[in-house]
C-alpha cells in the first residue's frame, strides 16, 4: 500500500495532478447542483410574486405561452 502511494518517489507530482483533477470535477458537479436549486427558487419567487400581484397586465400576457414545437419556438422570434 505504501509502495503504491509512493509512486516510486514521484508521489508529489502524481497525486498533485490527480487530486486537482478530481477536486475540480467534483466541484463542478456540486456547483451545478447548487445553481439548479438557486434557479428554481428564484423563478419560484418570481411566480409567487406575480400571482400575488394581481392577474392583470403583463403577468397574464407573458404567462400564457404554451409549450410547443412551432417554428417560432425553435427560432428566436418569440421575444
Amino acid at each position, binding site marked *: 500500500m505504501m509502495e*503504491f502511494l509512493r*509512486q*516510486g*518517489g*514521484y508521489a508529489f*507530482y*502524481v497525486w*498533485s*495532478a*490527480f487530486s*486537482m*483533477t478530481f477536486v*475540480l*470535477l467534483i466541484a*463542478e*458537479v456540486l456547483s*451545478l447542483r447548487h*445553481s*439548479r*436549486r438557486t*434557479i*428554481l*427558487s428564484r*423563478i*419560484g419567487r*418570481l*411566480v409567487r410574486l406575480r400571482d400575488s400581484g394581481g392577474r392583470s397586465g403583463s403577468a397574464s400576457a*407573458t*404567462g*400564457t*405561452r*404554451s*409549450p*410547443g*414545437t412551432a417554428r417560432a*419556438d*425553435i*427560432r*428566436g422570434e418569440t*421575444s
Partner: protein
Amino acid sequence: MNWFKYASPTAFYPLAGRLIPWLAVAALLLILFSLYWGFLHTPEQLGGSNPQKEYYRIIFIHVPAAWMSMWLYLVLAGWAAVGLVFNTRLSFMMANAVAPTGAVFTFIALWTGAFWGRPSWGTYWDWDPRLTSELILFFLYIGFIALHSAIDDTRRADRASALLAIVGLVMLPIIFWSINCPDPNQCAALHQRSSMSKIESNILTAMLTMTLGFWLYSFATAFSRLRGIILTREADSTWVRDIVEREAPV
C-alpha cells in the same frame, strides 16, 4: 421521427433530464475503471532508452483532458456557428453550456502538464509552443464566458460571444501543429510529439477509457447546465412555471 423536435428548448429540457443520470453513471464507471487499470495494470515506466518513471501516469488524465479541451472548443464554436447562421436559440444555449466544462478541462490539462513537466523536463512551465497555445485556449474560454456575461441583452451576448468563439477556432490547428509539425527540426517544442502507435497497450487502454469517461462527463455537465439556462431564459412561459411549482424548494 422528427429530430427537429429537439431543437426546441421545451422539448430538449426533459430529454436532457432523462439522459443525465445515465451519462453520469457511465462516466463514473469509466473513470474508475481507467484509474484502476492505469495504476494497477501498467508498467512502472514508459519509453525505451531514457524511460519516464511512475510520474508518466499523469498521462491518464493529462492527455484525455487536453483532448477534451480542444474537442469541447470545437463543439462550442460549432454550436455558436449554427446559432449565428440559423438563429436557433438552443444552439447558443448549447455553446454557453459547454464553455465552463471546456475551461475546466483546459485548466486540468495545463495543471497536470506542469506536474508532469517538473519531473521530466525540470520545469513546471515553459513558453513552449504547445504550452503557450493551450494557455491561450484557456483565455479564449474565459473570454467567451466573460464577454457573454458582460452584455445584458441575451441575444446580443449570444451573437457577440459566438463571433469570438468562431474567431478563436484559429487556435485549434495551432495547438495541433505546435508539436506535430512535418519537420521536427523546425519545431522548437519542449513538449513531446504525439506517439499513439508506439504506446504500450495497457497504458493506451487506461488513457482511452478515461477519454470516454471525460467525454460522457462533459455531456452530463453540459446538459445539466443547459437545463439551468433553459429555465432561466424561459422563466416567463407556463411550462417552466409548472416545473418550478413541482420542484422548487420553498
